[in-house]
């Protein structure tokens, strides 16, 4: 008994001593030892979904950012230093994204560019902020991203509210009489239909119904019937490509003949295949410009294809623009300091991006969004109306 007790005490004492010894001789407490010193390369950390359901877009983001980084390095780097892109997977999952963000922090990145899903990008904002890293978000655009009010977070993709406004403009141009909105209950699609409803009723458009569909299902017969039954002449579907394509197909099978407008999440080359060749008429989308829609982007496109042996996709240009915005901020600030870079980016006025001249609002979003209307033609989405007039 006493023996036991004694041993117990001995163990505790030994443990205590070793703890103290370790504490005394270590330097690891409470933070990172940044690997990068001032004359090494400037590291830009990027979070993108390389695995998971959105992994297709991760590659677009990574390639777009790499294009910009290579370009900067060809022109002599940034502040006399080369630029290096470090990509981590966020899997569009909050847990993976926070782990990825901290991994980037530990790898000594000084700047952060990236982010595809709003839900997984949101928790990374605070991590980058706390570690003195300015952040440009390339694709995610949920309104909650700016509500934390962090002054060094910038969005190069337009907000849902801006996209909703362009959708409303389109509806007005088409003289829609009865609008039917559909989302899948996810954060971004729902925010988009909500914002759309607000603006649309504000300008006197008539929204006859709103419906939510389950993106895991395939039979939207009930909604399709409802669309026809209510005599809708414009459907605004903000879900992702498969549910929207199926809804378009089924609604048209039931006799829907109006305009089918989709949000940017569904503007995808697969849409035409998935919806079926018989139903590709009058399908429109709200979208940001892609390189193939731009005039004078041919050499950029050719370079991209040569480099990655692939076509650029959605958000490639935003990732490219995001890196350029960040680099410009660093150049103007003369350092990678968070506050200085943030101030410099806030001070940008008409910096030329793919999406047009960029000026950021106090909240860190583009003052002028670049949403355009695309139309499905011969299996591809092409520019229909830039809504400038």
């Amino acid at each position, binding site marked *: 008994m006493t023996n036991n007790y004694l041993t117990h005490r001995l163990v505790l004492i030994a443990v205590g001593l070793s703890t103290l010894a370790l504490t005394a001789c270590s330097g690891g407490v409470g933070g990172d030892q940044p690997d990068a010193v001032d004359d090494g390369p400037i590291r830009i950390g990027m979070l993108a979904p390389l695995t998971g359901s959105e992994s297709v877009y991760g590659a677009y983001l990574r390639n777009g950012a790499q294009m910009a980084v290579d370009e900067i390095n060809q022109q002599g780097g940034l502040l006399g230093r080369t630029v290096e892109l470090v990509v981590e997977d966020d899997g569009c999952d909050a847990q993976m994204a926070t782990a990825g963000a901290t991994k980037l922090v530990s790898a000594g990145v000084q700047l952060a560019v990236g982010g595809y899903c709003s839900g997984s990008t949101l928790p990374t904002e605070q991590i980058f902020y706390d570690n003195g890293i300015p952040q440009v978000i390339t694709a995610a655009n949920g309104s909650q991203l700016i509500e934390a009010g962090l002054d060094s977070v910038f969005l190069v993709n337009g907000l849902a509210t801006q996209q909703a406004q362009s959708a409303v403009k389109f509806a007005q141009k088409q003289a829609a009489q009865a609008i039917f909105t559909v989302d899948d209950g996810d954060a971004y699609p729902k925010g988009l239909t909500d914002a759309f409803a607000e603006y649309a009723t504000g300008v006197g458009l008539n929204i006859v119904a709103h419906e939510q569909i*389950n993106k895991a299902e395939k039979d939207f017969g*009930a909604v399709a*019937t409802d669309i026809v039954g209510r005599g809708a002449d414009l459907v605004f579907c903000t879900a992702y490509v498969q549910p929207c394509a199926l809804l378009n197909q089924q609604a048209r099978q039931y006799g829907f003949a109006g305009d089918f407008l989709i949000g940017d999440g569904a503007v995808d080359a697969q849409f035409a295949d998935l919806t079926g060749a018989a139903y590709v008429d009058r399908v429109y989308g709200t979208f940001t410009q892609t390189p193939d829609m731009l005039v004078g982007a041919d050499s950029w496109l050719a370079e991209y294809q040569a480099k990655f042996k692939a076509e650029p996709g959605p958000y490639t240009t935003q990732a490219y623009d995001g890196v350029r915005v960040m680099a410009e901020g660093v150049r103007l600030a003369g350092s990678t300091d968070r506050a200085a870079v943030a101030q410099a980016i806030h001070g940008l006025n008409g910096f030329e991006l793919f999406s047009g001249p960029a000026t950021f609002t106090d909240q860190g979003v583009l003052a002028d969004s670049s949403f355009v209307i695309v139309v499905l033609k011969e299996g591809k989405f092409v520019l229909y109306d830039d809504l400038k007039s």
Partner: protein
Amino acid sequence: MIQVIVNGLSVGAFYALVALGYSMVYGIIKLLNFAHGDIYMLGAYVGFVVLGALTSWLSLPTALGLVLVTLVTMALTGGAGVLLERVAYRPIRHAPRLSLLITAVGLSFALEYGVRQIFGPQPSHFPVQIDAGSVHLFGATITIARIVVILVAAGLMVVLALFVAKTRQGRAMRAIALDAKAARLMGIDVDRTISLVFFIGSALAGAAGVLAGAVYGTIDFLMGFIIGIKAFTAAVIGGIGNLYGAMLGGVALGLLESFGVAWLGGQWRDVFSFLCLILFLTFRPTGILGGRVQERM
């Protein structure tokens, strides 16, 4: 109103086809085959591959080709079901039920993410689609595709019902469901019959998968998850282990959902069907046809 009923029927036909497999397996070895919904998904992908192979060899008229593909797919998914039973379930058939359930969950994951690794996470486009327009009936619009689904499902169910009721193997199944030990003593090859049940159940799910691909035109690796749960719900509503119950339950659930969506809105659809399941399990776990449980299989 009629439109709502027709919508419910066509969804219910899918539920019923998948529910049959659930119910048969449950009836005979008391196993909740969690991976059954994924057999449906597997069927869709097998059909996708077979269709690709067939159309590259010979050009058949769409309808005939589709029938052929469905038959081949049924055989292949049936075989897959038998294989899975042999590899995963048979070694632990006598282990506690918890082990079987966990194996089933593992199997479901392995199937879903195995297919995903092969075909990718994005939905695939099913090359052939039943798309023959629609007819108007009593003020409702019914697409031909939906009529085909309902007819095919009904046809398969009639064949199955006859098989179980009239044939020797059907009698063996019923015997095992009643008392496996006694059945074995009477000289019935229990293992073989169980394999047969897995074959039939998986083949039906495979047929449903091909139908889904042909009707909706798209397939993806997670398509079996929701329908698996819904089919189980259907099987419970009808009375699990009971063949007719599975059919009835599938149709009933399809109708319930169709009306539920009409009343509550699409976002509550799954909540609605799960609540139906919980209410049934709590208050009438034997289902609608529960009074006839002894007749199961």
